[in-house]
């Protein structure tokens, strides 16, 4: 009896024996070759498999009747969708999403080093390539087919019914697999793309996604899907419903139906190299000798073996990864040889589940440099001059005349920052009121601009932008200096003001403090009483905090002067 590893369900989906429901009635599972009913054989003592019911093969021919045929089937399953598509000269379609815009790409194979005679330069060979195509955007470089590239991509126009690329190779035998006409069907409702926003591929048949994959479903009409997790993009005349897939959501089944979704699939994630995108089938740049490490998580409650299959299939041997237990993560890795591009698929044997991994040799991996970072800045225009403030590098302060036009100032106030960047704003109003400071917290520039305008009209003398964790940006507004009146000169014999409501000149405060013995350490209440001649027992609720600040400031100056005097 041949042990068949998978069967077809009534929807035509391939069901691996590990996912089979043994309670299904006879006829639910059928043979992928002859269509005859299959029984599920599961138990503790023998290998789980599907098998023809006894006597069925007496009545019909089936190519899966022998172990050799099964082995052949297993081998066929090692060939990934991508490779089958290439074999049919069909262009695999992919897309990437950036800033809400979908870019459609076509993917073609590249030259293999193995196709070249020893000593032959790929650059010479590639001179024989010429390309024509329909509905293609941008130019197509011969170098795209260099064997150090894992794939050649081309941007496609959106909305076309069909794409075609004709590659002429001047009869060069090394380019044989590329030569000829390549085609792809245009994007149509019902198509599904799975992967990552940087690269998702069109898949066929039952959709298998892992938690964290990005999925895009093409619809003919605007789905008006307002779910938080869903973004709707336009592509040609169609729409794409895009979302990050996870096991507990229903978006995929809502659009495709339960039978078209296989919820639980293994995931193969690139742990190393460090900067590689973990779940993208797009090529990853890697330096010679750098470690590749892939973590493979089986679907829940399954414990399959896995295989690392060379791509293309005939490029080398298969690496086997043993079963380790239900749900136990397994790892595959090796140092990157460095001389040639590397393509493998992580494959669950006897299924169509493949995860393509592509690595392209590079001499350096560039990490972003701090000097390339965008810089937070504030642009201020006033009185026909433009000023820039930079909280990180400076300058952070600016002084403008108080006569600045409030409307012009606010209308031209700009911030280079992320959208909706929030900060605190402090405005110091030039009034005699106790409550001369206005603060607004966690605001955007556009939210606070009306307040700034009003404050400037009121005669604000200070505008401060307090950015979280960064130096403040401060704009001071100076009142014009009054013209000195030559007719009045201060009389040194005039009595000094004693009202605590008024601010004494600094020199008077200093004089009074210096009369104290010993000089006080702090601006304590008794010091303020002495300086302002406040009788004991009398409270002065109107005593402004500025007076206390003044005493503290003067005290600090006195201490500093004395300290410097001592050191001298």
């Amino acid at each position, binding site marked *: 009896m041949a042990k068949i590893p998978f069967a077809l369900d009534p929807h035509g989906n391939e069901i691996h024996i590990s996912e089979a429901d043994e309670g299904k009635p006879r006829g639910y599972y059928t043979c992928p070759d002859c269509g005859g009913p299959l029984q599920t054989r599961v138990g503790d003592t023998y290998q789980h498999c599907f098998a023809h019911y006894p006597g069925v093969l007496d009545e019909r021919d089936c190519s899966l009747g022998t172990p050799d045929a099964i082995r052949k089937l297993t081998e066929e399953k090692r060939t990934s969708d991508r490779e089958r598509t290439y074999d049919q000269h069909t262009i695999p379609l992919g897309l990437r999403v*950036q*800033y809400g815009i979908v870019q459609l790409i076509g993917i073609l194979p590249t030259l293999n080093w193995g196709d070249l005679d020893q000593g032959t330069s790929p650059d010479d060979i590639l001179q024989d390539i010429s390309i024509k195509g329909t509905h293609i955007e941008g130019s197509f470089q011969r170098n795209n087919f260099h064997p150090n590239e894992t794939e050649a991509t081309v941007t496609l126009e959106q909305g076309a019914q069909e794409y075609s690329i004709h590659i002429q190779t001047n009869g060069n035998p090394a380019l044989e697999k590329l030569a000829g006409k390549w085609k792809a069907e245009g994007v149509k409702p019902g198509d599904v793309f799975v992967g990552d*926003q940087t690269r998702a591929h069109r898949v066929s048949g039952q959709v298998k996604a892992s938690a*964290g994959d990005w999925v895009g479903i093409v619809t003919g009409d605007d789905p008006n899907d307002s779910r938080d*997790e869903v973004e709707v993009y336009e592509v040609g005349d169609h729409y794409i419903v895009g979302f*990050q897939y996870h096991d507990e959501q229903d978006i995929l089944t809502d659009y495709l139906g339960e039978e078209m979704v296989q919820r639980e699939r293994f*995931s193969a*994630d690139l*742990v190393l190299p*460090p*900067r590689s*995108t*973990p*779940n993208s089938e797009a090529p990853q740049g890697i330096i010679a000798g750098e470690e590749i*490490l892939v*973590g*493979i*998580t089986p679907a829940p409650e399954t414990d399959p073996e896995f295989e690392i299959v060379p791509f293309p299939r005939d490029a080398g041997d298969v690496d086997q*990864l*043993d079963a380790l237990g239900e749900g136990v*993560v*397994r*790892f*595959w*890795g*090796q140092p990157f040889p460095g001389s040639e591009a590397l393509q493998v698929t992580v494959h669950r044997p006897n299924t169509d589940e493949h995860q393509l991994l592509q690595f392209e040799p590079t001499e350096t991996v560039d*990490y*972003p*440099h*701090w*000097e390339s*970072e965008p810089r937070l800045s504030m642009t201020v225009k006033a009185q026909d001059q433009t000023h820039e403030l930079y909280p*990180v*590098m*400076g300058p952070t302060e600016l002084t403008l005349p108080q006569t600045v036009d409030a409307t012009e100032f606010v209308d031209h106030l700009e911030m*280079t*920052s*992320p*959208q*909706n*960047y*929030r900060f605190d704003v*402090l405005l110091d109003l030039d009034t005699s009121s*106790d*409550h001369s*400071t206005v603060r607004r*917290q966690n605001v955007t520039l556009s939210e606070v601009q009306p307040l700034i305008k009003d404050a400037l009209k009121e005669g604000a003398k200070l505008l401060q932008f307090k950015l*979280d*964790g*960064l*130096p*403040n940006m401060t704009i001071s507004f100076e009142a014009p200096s009054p013209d000195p009146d030559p007719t009045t000169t201060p009389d040194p014999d005039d009595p000094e003001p004693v009202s605590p409501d008024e601010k004494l000149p600094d020199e008077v405060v200093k004089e009074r403090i210096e009369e104290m013995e010993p000089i006080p350490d702090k*601006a304590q209440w008794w010091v303020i009483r002495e300086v302002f001649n406040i009788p004991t027992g009398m*409270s*002065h*609720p109107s*005593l402004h*905090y500025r007076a206390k*600040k003044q005493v*503290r400031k003067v005290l600090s100056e006195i201490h500093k002067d004395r300290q410097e005097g001592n050191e001298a």
Partner: protein
Amino acid sequence: MSDQPKPRELLATFTGLPPARLPERDDVVRRALVSECIRLGMADIIDEDEGWPEVHNLRLRNWVIRKLQTVIDFERDADDPARETDKDLFRRVLTEGPEPSLEFLGELIELDEGYYSPGPTRAVMSSQSSPVLVSGLPTRSFTDDFTIEIRGTSRHFVDTSQSSIEAAGIATQSIESYVDIEDTQSFDLDWLESFFDGQFDETVQPEHHWNGFDRSASYGLQWSDEEQDVRTFGMFYALFQDFGENRGTRYWLRRKPVEENPTSEFAEVPRRMLKYVCLILDDLGGNTREVIFEQTDEGLIVKADFQPPRPVFRWMAASGGLYDPVGGYLRWILTPDDKAATKQLFDKLPVTITDNT
């Protein structure tokens, strides 16, 4: 077949740093690994973006979880009540919870609708030779030019002078500027009065359901039904907690002169200013809180019998202080290099500093 990598080995590979410059404790290593992975994910996702880079946290989360899900358990400790959070490790490292997060450190900027941007690169001059590196960029962006050490979520330059950092085009800033208290000499009565004037709101009417602030205690603030006026020079101050319906808790500071039939004034206390106000009222009311410095085998211990305000937490996070509350005290383990800077910061608060080192 390869073996499962150990988180510390993986951290060394991710950062390009030798093990000697990585943390030892397993939980700290896990946080450091997730932090670095978030920086790497940001760099990968925004690589070719135009304009000001922004990444949605769901996309970043998928990147990080797919990168590390085979190596660490993100749900571990998620239900640990001692950690005061039910969030997974990604959330805790990104933005939430009492432990240091990248957003709190300023390495990421949180924007509206779940988006994040990398924070600008700068060095916080905590000491002459080991300033804190604050940046949204991966560690490998710096390892060709500087010696870097990982201390949990935060990173430090090692044996690097301010002049060499500035010569390389990296801005430097003071601790005070980094923790957003550059304008404040000390948090005292003067500050309270100035603060009140700035926040004064003449439209506020007291409501009967407000609770009065009683005192600070080790892990929180105590409130009571009774008003607790603190008398200062000519003024009474009292703080109230207002559990309004359909909105978050608000806090109000009342000021009234010491005189017959006084008129009360009110000012709203934003949540981030609350702890300053409480510590000042504690101090004025004779309940001055204490911070203790001790040297033990674990390192320099800083203990506080109160919840310090945000700048202290931020500084502790940036310095790599291990948050390790025990026995009624909030407690951090610091490297001795950071003692002076830490004391300088506590000096600004109206608290008693006891140095038992």
